[in-house]
Every structure is written in C-alpha cells, then in structure tokens.
C-alpha cells in the first residue's frame, strides 16, 4: 500500500483506530461520556478527512475498493448520519441501566461496514462490508437485552440476515462461475456481449437481488422490518433505516451502473415489480398500524419503493434523484426516530400513538419537529422530502416510467393519510388539563443536546426544502466525476 492509498482510506482508518481506542478505554474504566466523545470526534475527524478527497477524481485500490465522487458523497452522508445518531443515542442510553459503552464500538463498526460497501468494486469487499455491518447490527438490535422484544428482534434479524447472506453468496458464486471474475468491471466486460442473460447468470443476479432486497427491506423480503424496528432501541432503528439501507443502496447503484443491468428487461421487470409491491404493501400495511415505530417501518418500506423508481430510471438523473432523496430521507428518518428516542422513558420506547396525544400542547417544539419530519416523509412543500419526491417523479417522467410514476403519486396520497393521522393525534386537545409531563426528568445538558440535534435536523430539512440548489450542486458535482 502506498501513501496515497492510506490517504484515500483515511476515513476508514480513523474509524478503525477509534474502535481500538474505544476498546482500550473500556478496559481501563467505564465512562459513558468519554466513550461518546471518542465516537463523536472520530466521526467528525473521518468526515473532515473527506475534504481531502473532495475533488480527487476516481482512485482505485486494486482490486477491492474505488474511491470516487460518488463514494465520497455516500461516505460523507453515512458519517454525518452516524454522528447525529450517536448524539441522539447519548441521551437515550444515559437514562438506561445497561452497560452503555460497548454500544459505541458496535456503532462505529457498523458504520465502517456501510462505508466499505459504498466504495467496494469487488464481490469480496462487498460481502466483507455487508457482514461487518450485519454482525454489528445483530448485537445492536438486541442491545437492551433485558427487554424481551429487543431480544426477539435481534434473533429474528440474525436468522434472516444470515439466510439472506447465504443467498447473496450463492448468487455471487453463480455469477463468478459464469463470468470468471468477481470484479464489477470484469463482470461488465464479460457480459457486455450478451443481449439476453444466460440462465445461470440470471439466477445468480436473482439470488443477489434476494440478498440485497432483504437488507433494503423491500417487498417481498420485508417481513423482518416491522418487528425489528419495533424491538430495537430507537437510535438503532434509526441506524438500520438510514445508514444500513443507504450503504446497501449505494453498492446496488454502483454495481448496476457498472454492469449496466438496465439493458436486461428481465432484471428491470423484477425490480419494477419489487418497487410497485413495496410502495403498495408498505403504505397499505402502514394504514393498519397503531404503533408509531411500526408505521415508520412500513413507511420506510414504501420509501425504498419510491427510491427504486428513480433507480430504475437508470441514468445520471436517476442516480442524482436517488442520492438527493436519500439525503432527505436520512434527515427525516433520523429526526423522526430522534423524537421517538427523546420521548422514550426508562421502561419502554414511546411507540404507541397514545404517547403522542396532544403532544403539541405539552411539548410544542418537539411536536413541531416531528410534524415537520412527517410532512417531509409525506412530501409536502417547504421540506426536503418534497424536493426529493419531485426529483424522483421528474426522473421517472423523464424516462417515461409512467406506470411507476402514477403508482408513486397514488401511493403518496395513501401515505399522506397515515402521516397526517399522527399529526392529528399530536394536535388533539389534551384530555385533562392538569396532565403533567412525566418525562421531564432528564438532566438539562442531555436534554439540550438532543433538542439541539433535532433542531439542527429540522433546520436542515427546511433549508433543503426551500433552497435545494446548494445540495444539488454538491451532488451533481461529485457524482458527475464518478460516472463510470
């Protein structure tokens, strides 16, 4: 490895060192605050090191990794999201009895996994990143081990994720068997002459879609999502919904663009069906839920369906739309789960709709942030979600995916219904005037930290909603350099 290699891998190295340091610190003595500071600083340092790579162009570290504008943008997005989640986690875990310190190690590891995913250009690094991410997630989901449902969710995720990894591996093996290479570029070169995919290769791709689809929780591989979302601690749920899915989507885009999978009608058909099914099932099932975490779980299934619409556009604009929407979706999801985390108490998370009744009159600011997040998920103007949805629709209309676009529009209406229902519950009149807020016992400094994070997210949401040009410029600038 040369010095420039190190320089390009700096974000990953910083995180790795941080994990080691964190483990040593725990060996010396347990302190929640120190752990938190180490985590936050390492995320910030890793993010800062990205500025070195901002305009470096495409740099490959043979044979596994490629650092380009696309990768840099996704890593940056993942790091910032992880930073925000760690800020929310601090307040969340501070009020809990369990040992808190290891949580941060797992968080750092999972983030490394996601970062490796988005810069991988080889099946080996893809699988490596995916497994680092998944294995950390098993532990993270079951982290509050005294809670029955947390354990259940962890086991469920473990079994299903292992199963889907097996599918992915088998798929990779089949692709390898027919092309003789595991590098994305090599596969692209090997299949470039086929107009129709041979059966063996198609099976391989199909199995890979199963594995990837599971991680993205798209229909029909979505069964785990509601239970895991419900059982996992709120910050971990935010992590699964954002970083984990974002990383996997990043590698999916890279692989498909490189191989140019959009040439093959069979693959496009499969993904189209998956997208439509995800939108429909996610939104319709969300209508039936009374549990906020489950609603958000189904809504995230639907949102992945929306993302696939732009993905299926299969051109530069589609990739930009996916990326933009991901940014909006990250902000919104972290914000929404941040509110859930903030309202949670020692025993349980605030997940029933009842917990939110008349929230606006009890905690106006929190309720306002949550409303903004929900409206953004619904795609209402002045929020980032609106611009994102607009971008996706534009990408879809541009490539004339009329069926998908119309489905998206109809589904947005269904989605609106349940988001508005949560908002309506928050705006209801309080039943009894004297109802004191039982959850005001946090120490003020921690409270300020999470309120600060949420405020930051809300401001970002509105900023991108009102003035998307800045973000667009960054995305277009970085991704244009990455066009394979």
């Amino acid at each position, binding site marked *: 490895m040369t010095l420039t290699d190190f320089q390009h891998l700096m974000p990953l190295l910083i995180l790795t060192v941080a994990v080691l340091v964190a483990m040593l610190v725990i060996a010396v003595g347990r302190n929640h605050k120190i752990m938190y500071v180490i985590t936050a600083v390492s995320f910030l340092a890793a993010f800062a090191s990205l500025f070195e790579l901002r305009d470096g162009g495409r740099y490959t570290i043979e044979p596994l990794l490629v650092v380009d504008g696309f990768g840099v943008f996704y890593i940056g997005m993942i790091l910032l999201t992880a930073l925000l989640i760690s800020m929310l986690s601090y307040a969340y875990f501070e009020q809990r009895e369990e040992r808190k310190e290891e949580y941060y190690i797992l968080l750092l590891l999972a983030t490394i996994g996601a970062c490796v995913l988005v810069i991988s250009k080889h099946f080996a690094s893809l699988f490596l990143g995916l497994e680092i991410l998944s294995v950390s997630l098993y532990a993270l989901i079951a982290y509050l081990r005294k809670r029955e449902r947390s354990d259940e969710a962890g086991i469920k995720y473990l079994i299903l994720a292992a199963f889907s990894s097996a599918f992915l591996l088998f798929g990779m093996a089949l692709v390898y068997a027919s092309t003789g290479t595991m590098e994305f570029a090599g596969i692209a070169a090997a299949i470039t002459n086929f107009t129709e995919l041979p059966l063996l290769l198609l099976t391989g791709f199909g199995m890979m879609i199963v594995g990837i689809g599971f991680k993205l929780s798209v229909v029909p591989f979505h069964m785990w999502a509601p239970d895991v979302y419900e059982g996992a601690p709120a910050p971990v749920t935010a992590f699964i919904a954002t970083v984990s899915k974002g990383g996997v989507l990043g590698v999916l885009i890279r692989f498909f663009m490189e191989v140019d999978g959009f040439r093959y009608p069979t693959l496009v058909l499969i993904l189209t069906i998956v997208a439509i099914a995800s939108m429909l099932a996610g939104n319709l099932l969300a209508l039936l839920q009374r549990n906020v975490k489950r609603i958000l779980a189904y809504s995230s299934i639907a949102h992945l369906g929306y993302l696939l619409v732009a993905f299926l556009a299969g051109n530069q604009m589609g990739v930009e739309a996916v990326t933009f929407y991901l940014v909006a979706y990250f902000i919104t999801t972290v914000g929404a789960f941040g509110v859930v985390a903030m309202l949670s108490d020692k025993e349980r998370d605030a997940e029933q709709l009842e917990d939110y009744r008349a929230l606006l*009159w009890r905690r106006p600011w929190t309720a306002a942030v949550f409303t903004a997040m929900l*409206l953004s998920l619904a795609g*209402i*103007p*002045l929020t980032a979600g*609106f611009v994102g949805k*607009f971008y996706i*629709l*534009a990408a879809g*209309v*541009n490539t004339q995916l009329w069926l998908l*676009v*119309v489905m998206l*529009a*109809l589904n*947005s*209406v269904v989605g*609106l*219904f349940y988001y*508005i229902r949560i908002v*309506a519950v928050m*705006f209801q*009149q309080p039943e009894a005037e004297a109802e004191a807020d039982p959850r005001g016992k946090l120490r003020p400094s921690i409270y300020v930290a999470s309120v600060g994070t949420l405020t930051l997210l809300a401001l970002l949401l509105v900023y991108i909603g009102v*003035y*998307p*040009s800045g973000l*667009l*410029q960054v995305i*277009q600038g970085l991704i244009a350099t990455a066009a394979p």
Partner: protein
Amino acid sequence: MILVWLIVILMVGGMLAWISGKINRTLPRWVALASVGAVFGITLYLWLTNPIPVLGSAWLIQFAQPWIPQWGISFSLALDGLSLLMLLLTFFIGLLAVLISWREIQTKVAFFHFNLLWVLAGITGVFLTMDLFLFYFFWEVMLIPMYFLIGIWGHENRRYAAYKFFIFTQASGLLMLLAILGLYFIHGSQTGLYTFSYFELLNTTLAPEAARLLMFGFLAAFLVKLPVVPFHSWLPDAHSEAPTAGSVILAGLLLKTGAYGLLRFVLPLFPTATVEFAPWAMLLGVIGIIYGAILAFSQTDLKRLVAYTSVSHMGFVILGVFAFNEWALQGVVMQMITHGLSTGALFIIAGFLYERLHTRDIRQMGGFWSTAPKMGVIGLIFVMASLGLPGLGNFIAEFLTLVGSWQANNWLTVFATIGLVMATIYSLRIMQKIFFQEYKLEQPLPDMNAREMLIAIPMVAMILWLGLYPQPVLDTARPSIQEQLQAYTKSVVEQEPIARVDDNETVTIPEKATMLEKSKKAKPSSDLQIPKSSN
C-alpha cells in the same frame, strides 16, 4: 420586488403572530390585522396608481429571480389585472377573517393566526406565480394551514372533514404535478430549454393525445378545487365543519384558486384539447348548478346549505370558462369576486347565529327579524345577492356568464338559467326559515353589535358597488382575459367552431343586444368586447 413583499409580509406576520402569543393573548390578532391591512393597502395602492395597460402587454409588474437554476426553476412572480383583482379579494376577505375570529376563536389564538396568515400567503403565491413548479409549491403550501384551521378549531366532526379536504386536494394536486412534469419534459425535448416558466411553456406544441392527457392532469386539480360535481363531496364537509374564518376563506378564496387555475393555465396551455372537452365541461357545470341548487334546498344545516349554494354558483364558473369568449370570462371573473363576497357574508351570518344559538340547524331558528332587524337586513341583502337580484354584484356576473355561454352552447345555457330560478327558491327559503315564521326562542336574540356591523357594512358596500358600477373591475380584468383567450381567437377559427368567437364578424344575436341595452351596463360593440365606458 413589491410582489415578493406581499408574500413575505404575510409569512413573517404569521411567525410574529405565533411568537407574540407568548406575550399577550390579543397581540396575535393585532399583528394579523396589521399585516393583512398592510398588504391590502399595498395592493390597493397598486390598483389605483397603475394605469390599465393597453392590449399586448397585460402585465403590470414582473419579478423573477433564479431559484433552482439546475432545473430551470425561478422564483417568478407577475401581476396582471386578473391577479390584481384576485389579490384585492384575498386581502379584503383576509381582513374580514381576522375580524370575525376576534371573539369566536378563544383557544390557541396565536397558532390560529399563524395558520390564517400562511393560508393567505399560499393563496397570494398561487395568484402571483408564473413558474409552474412554484405554482405547485404554493398550491400545496396553502393546504397544510387550512388543514389545521379545520382540524383544530372546527366543529364536532372536524377531523373527518379535515382529512377529506386534505386528501382530495392533495391527490388531485399530485396529478397536476405529473402533468406539469410531462409538460416540462416535452417542452425541454422540443427546444432543449428545460424550464418551468409559464411564458416559455406557453409556446410548447403538443401532440393532441399528449395535450389531452396533460390537460386532464391540470383539470384534476382545478376541478376538485372548484369543485365540479362528481368531485365536490369534500366541500360541504369542509365548509360546514370549519370555523367561520375557515369557511369564509374556503368559499371566498380557495375555490377561486381553482377557477383562477383554469383561466390562467388550462385555457392558454391547451387550446385545442380544451375545445374538444368544452361541451363536457359545460355539461358538468350545468349539472353542478342544478344539483347544487337541489341539494341546497334540502339542507337543514345552515352552513351546509350555503356550501351547496357554492357548488351551484361554481357551476357558472366552469360554464363560463369553457365558453371561450370575453363576455363569459368577464362574467367568470365577476362571479369569482361576487361569490367570494356574498357567500363569505352568508357564512359570516351563519357564524354570528352560531355564536348566539350554538346551533347551525335552521329548524331551530325562525322569526329573528323582530328581535334582530339589523342582521335581518344584512342577511336579506346577501340572500338577494346570492339569488342574483339586479343591482347586486352577482347579477352582473351571472348575466355576463350566461350571455357568453349562450354563444357557445344554447341548450346548456337554457338549463343553466333554470339554476337561477332554483337559486331564488333556496335563497328565499333561507330568509323565510331564519328571519320570518314565528319566534321559537325564549329570550330575545341579541342584534349585531358594532364590531359585527363593522364587518358587514363594507361587504354590503362592496356588493352594491359591484352591482351598480362594475366597470372598473371589468376594465382591470379585460387585458388579461384577452391575453388568456389569444390562443382561441386564432385556433378556434380553424377548429370545429364549438365556440364561435370571431374577431371581425359580428355574431351578436339581436336578442342579446337588446338584453344588453336593458342592463345599461355595456353596449355591444362590433368586436364583441365590452367597451370601457358606455357613454
């Protein structure tokens, strides 16, 4: 820049009103009153100082600033006679809405006024914007605060009504968004210039099939908002459950955004497709007129009754819009204004009665003339306005609409006229049930106080003025109406002449000429335009 200020003042005023609620409970009211008063003043000033432009450049003020240049979106506002009139109406009704809430709204005053001002800001944006993306943006911006107005301060069944309102308008709005995007990409692929600018998109040439689909996308949003009969079912619920200010804004302004959209976007953008669709649209309009009138007659809930009269009156709007001639469109513009005033006033009276009686059921009312004569007189004036009595604004509006639509389609106009008779029946029923018959209450009904008179008298003055001397309004609207019709004066001649409006030949039917002379409002000129002044 002054146009931006109109929106900014309202939005900032809304924020201030919310914040000032922490200091004092009545402060938000004053903040809201001041900001709406300010924008009303500005608009009035614009009207009085700006000369009506000559034909060719209907635009009084324009403002454009790139917003998202990557997508060809600009923050582009423009004012012409039509938007000027709509803005005047918006702010006039906005002022009334603040005033009538003074006593009615007692909970969460600050947040109420925030929402009120933001609805007005959204509506202002819709009337001003000349960028289709921005138009959709404002179209949606006005929804959320309206949803809260209905959902928080409404009557018993408010949540259902708020949902219904929101989902109807949002779903139809999304279809419009798809149509906007379709237009954007078609225009972009033709010219290489990807832009949402209204003025650029006007020059798009569309294949008939594409034009038809895109037109239906736009129509979906506007017809639901207007509303036209099969899509009207959100309206009675929303109107009757909203607080008085909400009903007034809904009836007075939100419905008008639909009509405005038809005039501003559908007519000029899709000249051929609309001509094909016109008979059906006019039929829907006539069905709306009659259906609304019949349902209005059978209601017992006063606000619901007034809501159905809106359905009936909006039928005239769509009838007029799809007649494609200047008379009908002048009628439509007048109808938008006068309906906003007269229906708003009826909702305000319903609000006054509700404040006193805590019911909207007209079966429990009766004989109020004896104890509340002032309210009786005001009520009488607006009921008469609503049935189209000459001398009041609505008469001019409906008359012009019918004259225009007669030229386009004789039979449908005949049926539409039946609606006028039915309007008489339901309007008189309102009068009779509430103010006549025997008195049913134990204690006397308090008459209108000074604040309520302050609200009612300007409305009476306005409706009388519009009925007696509508010429300034017609003059203001005329250049922009001609602008909207430009495509038709050219294309209609080549097309199947559904609407025969020719530039030079007079097709005035003698019968109508005499009718016009009788009305003493305008004399027919050779080119079928309403002259600026008849003497």
